[in-house]
């Protein structure tokens, strides 16, 4: 009983791209900006990154300490819940595995927290095992503030609201809790391939 929109044909489909585009998404070449409030601008001298919550000991880096950690270059497609996808984006960042090295925890979830009060929740296994980074360069240049600079979380296999802009740390949690958009009805997990945009999808 699928509804067909009268006289709608859509754009010509590129079969070569079809397998790379999750359902309901379309490709963009620009880099749209979405955020709920003013862009925070924390001076690097005041910036820190912390691992907090259910851990045996807290970890904390200043910007200089963070930038001495080993980095990786990551090329991935990204998918925003507002329907745009951007292919082959190139980032440089520190793997979350590196940040969690030596941390003893029984936690199964993390809450990423950011300047400006933004939060988003993720399962720990979705930010470990080479699946997530704290990225500070985009396309070979320092990440602009409106795109989340000086550093944002990068979790490209989930909708991009999970890749928290202006990220300042990860709080490890025993139980899952909704972050900012999740509180407003967005999906707790957010897998673009299963089109988990909103609660109940």
């Amino acid at each position, binding site marked *: 009983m*699928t509804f067909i929109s009268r006289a709608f044909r859509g754009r010509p489909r590129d079969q070569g791209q079809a397998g790379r585009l999750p359902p309901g998404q379309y490709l963009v070449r*620009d880099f749209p900006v979405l955020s709920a409030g003013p862009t925070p601008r924390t001076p690097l001298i005041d910036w820190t990154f912390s691992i907090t919550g259910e851990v045996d000991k807290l970890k904390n880096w200043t910007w200089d300490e963070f930038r001495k950690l080993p980095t990786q270059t990551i090329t991935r497609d990204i998918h925003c819940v507002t329907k745009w996808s951007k292919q082959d984006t190139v980032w440089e960042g520190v793997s979350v595995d590196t940040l969690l090295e030596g941390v003893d925890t029984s936690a199964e979830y993390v809450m990423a927290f950011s300047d400006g009060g933004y939060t988003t929740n993720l399962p720990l296994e979705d930010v470990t095992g080479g699946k997530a980074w704290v990225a500070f360069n985009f396309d070979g240049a320092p990440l602009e503030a409106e795109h989340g600079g000086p550093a944002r979380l990068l979790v490209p296999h989930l909708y991009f609201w999970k890749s928290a802009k202006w990220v300042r740390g990860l709080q490890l949690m025993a139980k899952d809790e909704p972050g900012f958009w999740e509180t407003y009805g967005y999906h707790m997990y957010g897998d673009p391939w299963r089109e988990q945009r909103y609660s109940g999808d």
Partner: protein
Amino acid sequence: MARAAVQRRLTWRLGRVTRRIDETARAKSLVLNVPDWPGHRAGQHVDVRLTAPDGYQAERSYSIASAPEDGDQVALTVERIEDGEVSPYLDDELAEGDQLELRGPIGGYFVWSTDMGGPLLLVAGGSGICPLMAMLRHRAARQSHVPTRLLYSSRSLDDVIYRKELDSLAGRADGLEVFHTLTRSQPAGWSGYSRRIDRDMLAEVAFAPAQDPLCMVCGPTPLVEAVATTLVELGHAPERVKTERFGPTGG
């Protein structure tokens, strides 16, 4: 941060177009009758889904422009993006009597209702007026007198969406003031602003930070970035500045 989650499954519904309104040369409003519409708050949006005969689907988000008080009548205002896939269909092809698939309401942060009080500063660029119009319509429907100012940036007078209705709302003398700025061309005798929104304009129009106004800013990213940053520089608390951005993203 609010933790009052409303976890309700958002199902696809069929609305029927009951009216089409030419707002400007590039923007049309679609008034839909959506049976059993669950209701919305002013500022929320819907997802619209188009399905081709071969099963291909395209989805986009549109702000709701109508007041929650309109019941099952839900109005969307769609600005045509020339090389877009969905907006030209909605603006040119979809006729009165046609059905449209949608789900919502979505979002709960960029919202305002009369019980949130004021003062309320609304700043819009182009079609960014749509969710703010829902707030103004809600305010009027509730006969609210919350002190409210709208600063609305358009390219020319012909590009002003809801122009007559805004004039009429401002004429109610109920505490709403409307300020226009026209950035590209102005008619003879124009007495409003004639430039992009800047610091001086915001300092003149916005309520004083000491009045702790709620500021809602919606429009293209460069406008929203500039306005939100300037409001904070003028002394407004960042948590009182809420933003929603429309980008040229192929819609």
